[in-house]
């Protein structure tokens, strides 16, 4: 397990004085946990729900917080889910924060009934920096996680929502470690939020959905669009493939004509790719092609027959004379 090296340029927090110790002047970075997260992987869905929570916040709340759920694979934390938690900044100086603990406990329980394998791995907040109240909240989550016998510290995900002058919306993840003034003192001087390497991961279906969302992200008017049909998506893939091939062939033409300097690595890569194309002789190819075609035709024929059969049988049943007469002659007993 490798620990991240201490870099002096990261943010150092200093909370109120009860934490300061008196005599020693040397500073120790005390990584006080038995293990610390190495990196974290985030599913885009989590960010979506964070943003959704932010959009729905109360009028005077500058930021929102919530818990992160996920899995912990030996230091690599995968964040899969989240839920919001209502909170208030009681004090103006952000020194006192009220979190609804019951809410947290209940929501966690409800979530775990539906997703039994997910555990709390940290918490999120919107906004652009870490401040004193974050420390307190972080502490709260750390205690919660210790209750579940985890030896990993919580991960703090910070999602910027201001987007004023920034060009990008960089989401950051942090892990905290307490800062001690000396090894002897028990109370830490402050808490140091160390940035954690993080990346987005998705599984296949999610990636496809996110891709769809990305493609239509710039729809202006009502920001809605329809799900594309099968053929439309097929067409778009084929077009993309065609574009790729055109680009590559243009590049190769340019290199041959001498207008673009050739890069041996790219050339080798292209050669390898081309070598992957199966060389099938025409007979085998014909056979394969025809057998595939026949399979498809047969399936389509069978399914059409089945459908016709279903509709026919329904029509026949509904116009069956025995049934019709039984509908019309219900009270036969009275004829006796």
């Amino acid at each position, binding site marked *: 397990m490798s620990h991240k090296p201490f870099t002096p340029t990261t943010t150092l927090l200093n909370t109120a004085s009860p934490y300061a110790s008196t005599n020693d002047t040397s500073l120790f970075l005390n990584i006080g946990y038995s293990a610390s997260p190495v990196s974290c992987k985030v599913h885009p869905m989590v960010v979506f729900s964070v943003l959704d929570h932010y959009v729905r916040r109360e009028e005077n709340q500058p930021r929102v917080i919530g818990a992160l759920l996920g899995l912990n694979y030996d230091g690599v934390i995968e964040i899969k889910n989240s839920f919001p938690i209502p909170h208030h900044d009681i004090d103006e100086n952000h020194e006192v924060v009220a979190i609804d603990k019951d809410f947290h406990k209940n929501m966690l329980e409800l979530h775990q009934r539906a997703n039994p394998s997910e555990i709390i791995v940290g918490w999120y907040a919107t906004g652009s920096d870490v401040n004193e109240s974050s420390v307190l909240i972080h502490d709260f989550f750390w205690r919660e996680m210790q209750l579940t016998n985890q030896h990993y510290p919580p991960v703090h995900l910070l999602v910027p929502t201001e987007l004023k002058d920034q060009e990008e919306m960089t989401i950051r993840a942090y892990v905290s470690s307490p800062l001690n003034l000396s090894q002897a003192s028990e109370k830490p001087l402050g808490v140091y939020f160390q940035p954690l390497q993080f990346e987005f991961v998705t599984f296949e279906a999610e990636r496809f*959905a996110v891709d769809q969302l990305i493609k239509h992200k710039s729809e202006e008017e009502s920001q809605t669009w329809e799900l594309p049909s099968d053929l439309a998506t097929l067409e778009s893939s084929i077009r993309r493939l065609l574009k790729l091939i055109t680009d590559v062939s243009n590049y190769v033409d340019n290199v041959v004509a001498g207008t673009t300097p050739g890069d041996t690595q790219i050339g080798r890569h292209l050669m390898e790719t081309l070598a992957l194309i199966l060389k099938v002789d025409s007979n085998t190819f014909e056979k394969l092609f025809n057998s595939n075609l026949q399979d498809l035709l047969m399936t389509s024929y069978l399914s059409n027959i089945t459908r016709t059969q279903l509709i026919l049988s329904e029509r026949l049943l509904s116009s069956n004379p025995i049934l019709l007469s*039984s509908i019309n002659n219900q009270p036969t007993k009275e004829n006796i």
Partner: protein
Amino acid sequence: MADAWDAEQIEVVQIDGLVVLKIIKHCKENSHESVTGQLLGLDIGSTLEVTNCFPLPRRSDDEEEDDGDSAAEYQTNMMRHLRTVNVDSNDVGWYISANLGTFLNSNTVIEQYNHQVAISTSVLVVYDPLKVKQGTLALKAYRLTTNFMKWFKGTSRTQESITKAALSFTDIFEEIPIKIHNSSIVNAFLFEIEDSGRIALDYERLDLSIGPYLEKNMELLIEYLDDLSGDQHKFFAYLRNLRWQQSQQATLLEKRSADQARKLAGEEVPEEEDLSQNPAFKTVTSPSRFESLLMTKQVNNYCEQLNQFVGQSFTKLFLLGELSGKRTV
């Protein structure tokens, strides 16, 4: 008094990107079985906006007794909590995961019926996690038709009542188009992750292997057809019984009227037997056709899926044929 579902209909279902991702995640994690969840949102005019959703816990077989209670309790708890964070806590429907389109059973229909009786604009969203390998997002919204609702409200499930209501298996569900919607800040986020280098690799759908999907689909089709034919046999047995009964009734009544005519003519006639005890007059119960209606619709679904898949595969196959320079026609 008009039934609640005669009110104005929903034309479009607008789903948030967040909901789509949540549904995908939940169904993907439990892909071996069918799972359900609750949809939350708001209906505005003829558009149903779905803004959030949450999964419902799986029902294990041991907890049969308090099943209904615990599920309802879970729902109310969850919705109460979500309301405190300002999520729209209106129940607008539910979603179900359907492997290869298998979702039509009586439980589903009964559940949707209950939903629609309570809230007329309730929808059922069906997500097929296995279809994503073909490169499509198989998300569909359904609603029970008013015709079907009226028939279902009555307790009779016989073929006679189906014929009277002029109900066909195509009339059970009707599909509502789906639109996807995102708020602006989410759009900003999407711009961000697009640049983060995750290329949209959607070339998997150009894959030519048709075997596994066709096989699975055909297997399911055959299974359901078997069930359907078993049901049909039962029904034909009933029809045969009915026909025999009708002919018996006809002959017995004829005999009786002939006897009465002879009596009037003063001839000796045998004692009139109590015809109501005669087996020919026992009412034959008409079997329930509900299951078979659903099975028919399911088989129809499979056939449509097959057709769609075959269409796509044809395109890919011919494309390959052209690329390799083979003249195949």
